């Protein structure tokens, strides 16, 4: 029960430069990011800075961007949709996170896992399933029309995008906020209760602000993801947003238009800016509030009234956010589902169809996503450590660089990889880009920001004095990281891994460019192939269900591991 006073240690300049090991680490990460992120992307987007037909440097394209009404409208729409999505995602995530982390809540691990599922909505089929439920002639509207004679435009225009995006991305807030809430010292909460605070005020004034690093990590991810996401608006036929504009232009055939790349640059700048602002908001505040290493305290028990209310809210939210998955499940068993609340009949034929082929996709997906997730947490921990715990010059640049990956459209990265690595051949003449490891690297780069934010938030909450204690007892920096920092960050690291892993498992845009043969293809590619058919979505949905179950099982496993390791260390509750 020893507490660590949050003294001034963290704001004292600890070192002018880093140890040789830290410098080497920083250089290695910088080299990796330059090689696999900056260079490939630069080969593609330099076009944004060149004059038409020549390679002269110019900013006239940005002038065009600002002058074009469509782009400015898109920019505004993107901001609006992203901000509103953060609001709604928070509405979904806050109750789930709070109830499952600070109370004795039966099925907390299941809620956490189910609440995570929306993130692994497979491409294409997810939107199809949502349309079947919430679309203009989806189940709900057909029934509403039948019974009451009106329809609700869930899926129309910008509001439709906000709805789908907040359902899709709220797990980012859920995961990061839950990790942060687990780390909030209960004495902080008790002190407030002791002074007369309770219920929502207690949450708003004390608990939530203390979990702010985690919340901001999640919220900024949601903002940037929605800002940069092109699939959802396009599937809802909303084109006047920035990311869809960039995608449409980059991939349109036969057009050598720099505007697509100009928009990509704008997206990258906006994303980095959002991340910078969220970091800025936390600056000058010490959030290392934990009593980590001490004994855990019991979670609160709900009164019967609270329990009814709590479970009611959780079930309501889960029902809403999991509706797409239910739709997907129905679709995978449906024969024909057309203009009716439910399918005409059910069949297992779609599963039979995908069964033979899915095993190779599953194997590839597991291998790729695991390696990519692994690379991400290693880089994430390293970058977070360098940024938060050293005074190396320019260390923030590692963070900005890695974060910028969030904003780079997958297709730009894919083309960049082909351009950069296809010319590089192995001794037997195979291009480097043709190896499956290229797909893994692309996935790792694309998902690095997720893991990085989680690791960053986890490290932010650990008091420096715990490390100083270790160093004081004779541990070197490296050993301190390994024996103290990493174990204490375990929850955040696992959260980061799970996010990277599961989103990498359903990533498509970059993969599509890089897959060279069916035997190297992951699940998302298989889904894409099955979706290229007008003969119904059954097989695609079946494969989608397989993907969701696969990733969900892995996620659930990780949650169990988190719980267990927390308990074993006495940090659990």
């Amino acid at each position, binding site marked *: 029960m020893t507490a660590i006073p949050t003294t001034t240690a963290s704001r004292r300049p600890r070192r002018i430069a880093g140890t040789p090991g830290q410098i080497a680490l920083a250089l290695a990460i910088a080299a990796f990011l330059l090689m696999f992120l900056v260079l490939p992307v630069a080969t593609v987007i330099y076009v944004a800075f060149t004059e*038409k*037909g*020549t390679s002269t440097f110019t900013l006239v*394209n940005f002038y*065009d*961007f600002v*002058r*074009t*009404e*469509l782009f400015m409208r898109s920019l505004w729409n993107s901001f609006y949709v992203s901000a509103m999505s953060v609001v709604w995602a928070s509405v979904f995530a806050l109750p789930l996170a709070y109830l499952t982390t600070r109370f004795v809540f039966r099925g907390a691990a299941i809620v956490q896992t189910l609440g995570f599922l929306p993130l692994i909505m497979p491409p294409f089929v997810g939107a*199809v399933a949502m*349309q079947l439920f919430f*679309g*203009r*002639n989806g189940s709900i509207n057909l029934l509403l029309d039948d019974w009451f004679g009106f329809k609700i435009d869930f899926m129309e225009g910008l509001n439709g995008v906000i709805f789908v995006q907040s359902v899709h991305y709220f797990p980012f807030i859920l995961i990061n906020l839950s990790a942060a809430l687990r780390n909030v010292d209960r004495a902080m909460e008790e002190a407030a209760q002791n002074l007369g605070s309770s219920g929502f005020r207690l949450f708003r004034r004390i608990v939530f602000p203390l979990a702010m690093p985690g919340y901001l990590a999640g919220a900024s991810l949601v903002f940037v993801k929605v800002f940069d996401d092109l699939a959802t608006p396009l*599937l809802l*036929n909303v*084109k*006047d947003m920035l990311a869809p504009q960039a995608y*449409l232009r980059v*991939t*349109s*055939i*036969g*057009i*050598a*238009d*720099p*505007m697509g790349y100009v928009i990509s640059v704008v997206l990258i700048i906006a994303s980095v800016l959002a991340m910078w602002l969220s970091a800025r908001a936390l600056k000058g505040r010490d959030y290392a509030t934990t009593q980590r290493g001490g004994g855990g305290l019991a979670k609160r028990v709900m009164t019967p009234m609270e329990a009814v209310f709590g479970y009611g809210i959780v079930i309501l939210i889960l029902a809403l956010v999991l509706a797409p998955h239910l739709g997907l499940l129905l679709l995978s068993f449906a*024969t*024909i*589902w*057309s*203009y*009716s609340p439910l399918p005409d009949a059910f069949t297992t034929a779609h599963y039979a169809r995908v069964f033979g082929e899915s095993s190779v996709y599953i194997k590839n997906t597991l291998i790729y996503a695991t390696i990519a997730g692994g690379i991400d947490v290693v880089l994430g921990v390293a970058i977070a450590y360098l940024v938060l715990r050293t005074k190396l010059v320019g260390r923030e640049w590692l963070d900005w660089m890695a974060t910028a990956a969030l904003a780079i459209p997958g*297709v730009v990265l894919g*083309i960049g990889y*082909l*351009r950069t690595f*296809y*010319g590089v*051949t192995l001794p037997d003449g195979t*291009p480097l880009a*043709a190896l499956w490891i290229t797909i893994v690297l692309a996935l790792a780069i694309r998902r690095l920001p997720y893991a990085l934010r989680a690791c960053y938030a986890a490290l932010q909450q650990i008091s420096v004095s715990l490390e100083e204690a270790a160093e004081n007892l004779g541990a070197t920096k490296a050993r301190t990281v390994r024996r103290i920092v990493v174990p204490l960050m375990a929850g955040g690291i696992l959260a980061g891994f799970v996010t990277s892993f599961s989103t990498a498992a359903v990533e498509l845009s970059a993969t*599509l*460019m890089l*897959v*060279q*043969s*069916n035997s190297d293809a992951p699940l998302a590619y298989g889904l*894409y*192939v*099955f*979706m*290229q*058919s*007008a*003969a*119904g*979505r059954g097989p695609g949905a079946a494969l989608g269900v397989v993907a969701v179950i696969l990733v969900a099982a892995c996620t659930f496993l990780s949650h169990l591991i988190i719980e267990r390791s927390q308990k074993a260390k006495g940090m659990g509750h």
Partner: protein
Amino acid sequence: MLNRRTALAASLGLSLSASFMTIALAQAPAGKVTVVTSFSKDVTDPIKKAFEKAVPGLTLEVQNRNTNAGVKYVEETKANNQVDLFWASAPDAFEVLKGKKLLTAYKPKATGIPDKIGSYPINDPAGFYFGFAASGYGIMWNDRYAKANKLPEPKEWQDLAKPVFYDHVAIAAPSRSGTTHLTIETILQGEGWDKGWRTIKEMAGNFRSINERSFGVPEQVNSGQVGVGVVIDFFAFSAQASGFPVKFVYPSVTTVVPANVGIIANPPNKAAAEAFIEFLLSPTGQEVLLEPGIRRLPVNPAVYAKAGADYPNPFTDPRFQKMIGFDVDKSEGRTAVVDTLFDQLISFQLDALKGVNKVLHEVDAALAKKPNDKAKALAEEARVLLAAMPVTEAQAASAELRGAFTGGKEKGARQAEVEAQWASFARDNYAKAKTKAEEALKAAK
């Protein structure tokens, strides 16, 4: 070796010319043939199976990418090309590849394939790509949806402009879907530049959605999210084959165009690539197209003998004979301009366009009850404003305008400038049209 040759000869049968057999025997292709295609598994799986059976020793490696991504991919990897064939519907994509010197010329040995289907040449005259199956464009609709919303059965493009179809029609953006681009181009060529655009814009005033993927349209029609879709015929046929309650019609202004295959420049396995083309054009390969999941129109007229009686036959069916000729060069020359016009005047201004159209539909309804000349004249003024185009047909084909889209060396307007001009042209005209239409409505009531 003897076994393989015998099997090859036997399976290809006597329909193949003797000269091809000599070449095939001399080169004996083996190994892997890699093809980049936009075709779905429904199409590629049966063909792969039949091909590997017909030519033992060869395996077909299918890389599935949409047409645009496929073209980009081939372009980006040309330095160390690993792909043998490009295989897709839209002839435009092949024109782009050809223009970038990414295709190899070849002369197929297969016989029995005519020069033209309808009035469209089956093969690239320069010999860089070859049609292997034909498709026509038309209108697909969901029967349940149509009944529930009391929609009549559409027959012509103009039907889709009628008030009853307001907010019920879906299309893919021509800039995103090679097949839709051909549909738009067909209407433009069939009705003429100005009249064609008027038809298209009047239809567009009824659009529910403009999809980014070709597959989005049959998807929405199948599931009943949208009632009517502008699609390529086999989308509707394969949906019907799966049991969806959808119907399809070829309007009289349409065309049949071939889906193509071509050899990539500097292919790793040239002999195998040639073998694949020969297989596709052989009777065996052509017959595979008749399978319910594929339902494409073979380019070998003899194969239709094996098809059911209700299978559309473009070589004998009089409907197809009436279809218009299609000028590929004209289409290719203005592809980017037509697509960008569609995007700037329709896709990105859809709300404004629909707003005017809705009022015009109300005017029509009011006029039907109580004729009013002033209102009629105002409505026509509004329609003219809607239909107005910022460029003429001649300008659209001009080298100057094309230069803005190709990023060529020549000095000229940048694409972004041209687009901004067109967008403000459309915005202004639609705003004016809205005022006129509202005046007309006031007068009519």
